[in-house]
């Protein structure tokens, strides 16, 4: 990065002047890793063996980063797989505008979307909690006491989640979603028929593989599977993040979501 900076042709500036350079002119050369992505920054996650809780199950606790789609859910598809979206829902998706993205409007990501902020897993004997720093500084609760989904529920952003262990993998089954959130920046849709099954496998101390099966016969012609990996952030703590504090600039966002 520094070498690029040293190579940079200096941009001529007069004091007090405003210079707007077009793409055809010499742009200010990158002098920092800004934009390289927090998920790529910092030390590599630890690779030691996973630990177990006193009850024998895998200890999933810690502060994690990533683990779900942000920009485009298709990035989590297996090689060669395609998104089995119904044509009518493709049209709806194509018409979506970026400024309508619920996440940009400080609403929850839903499932399985992630945001650029850390999150924590907290396990108790009866519940597993996912605590989110970012949108919207909220949480998911996963019932681990063997209960079933209720027969009736009010559709919600995170749905109703029950979990169980399949060997060393935590399996989280969720229904009862609303249809308000998007799967990613590009507006990949779903309906209230959405049913997700997430499989959380801590493959090393610092690596959590999250494989999610998305079954939504409302918007898709078949279930499909996505896989994303979360990275442990050792020594990190969650910080307060109140998105709605000063989100008054969403109206400046322009263009179709699909152009992300």
């Amino acid at each position, binding site marked *: 990065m520094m070498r690029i900076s040293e190579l940079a042709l200096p941009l001529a500036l007069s004091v007090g*002047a*405003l210079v*707007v350079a077009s793409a055809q002119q010499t742009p200010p050369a*990158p002098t920092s890793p800004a*934009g390289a*992505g927090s998920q790529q920054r910092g030390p590599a996650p630890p690779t030691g063996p996973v630990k177990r809780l006193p009850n024998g199950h895998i200890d999933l606790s810690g502060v994690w980063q990533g683990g779900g789609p942000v920009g485009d859910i298709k990035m989590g598809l297996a090689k060669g797989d395609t998104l089995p979206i119904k044509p009518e829902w493709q049209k709806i998706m194509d018409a979506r505008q970026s*400024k309508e993205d619920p996440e940009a409007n400080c609403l929850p990501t839903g499932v399985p979307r992630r945001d650029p902020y850390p999150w924590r897993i907290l396990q108790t004997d009866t519940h597993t909690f996912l605590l989110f720093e970012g949108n919207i500084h909220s949480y998911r609760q996963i019932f681990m006491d063997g209960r079933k989904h209720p027969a009736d529920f009010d559709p919600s952003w995170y749905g109703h989640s029950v979990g169980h262990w399949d060997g060393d993998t935590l399996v989280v089954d969720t229904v009862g979603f609303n249809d308000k959130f998007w799967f990613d920046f590009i507006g990949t849709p779903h309906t209230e028929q959405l049913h997700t099954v997430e499989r959380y496998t801590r493959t090393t101390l610092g690596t959590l593989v999250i494989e999610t099966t998305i079954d939504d016969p409302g918007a898709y012609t078949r279930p499909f599977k996505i896989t994303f990996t979360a990275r442990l952030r050792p020594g990190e703590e969650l*910080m307060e993040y109140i998105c709605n*504090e000063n989100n008054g600039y969403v109206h400046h966002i322009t263009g179709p979501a699909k152009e992300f």
Partner: protein
Amino acid sequence: MRAKLVCVLVAMGTALWTPGVIAHHSFAAEYDANKPVTLKGTVSKVEWTNPHARFYVDVKDDKGAVTTWNLELASPNVLRRNGWTRTSLNVGDEVTVEGAMAKDGSKMANARVVRLADGRRVFAGSSGGDAPPPAN
């Protein structure tokens, strides 16, 4: 050679500057990476707030007319994790800002690099979600 070097720099700049995947909203939907802007002026306000820290810079043109620009940064949490604080930049500071202009043509930009008059770099970190460390 020069043309080739410029092309390489443009390509690398674009590659480094496509942070949409880690922002709270799509970078590309609000800012145009192909419209870089460099602003030189005086900080008139700093907002250390979510979802993005912001600061405002009064830029004088050759005739003395002042335009206030609204510069967007990452969130305070991201900036703080990278070593910046709410007092890293203060009202009255003379700064040079490199960023990407808002697509809608308003006097807004995404601040990528911020330098004080003495050349020290202060919190540069776009709403792409990350910021360089505070080393100068």
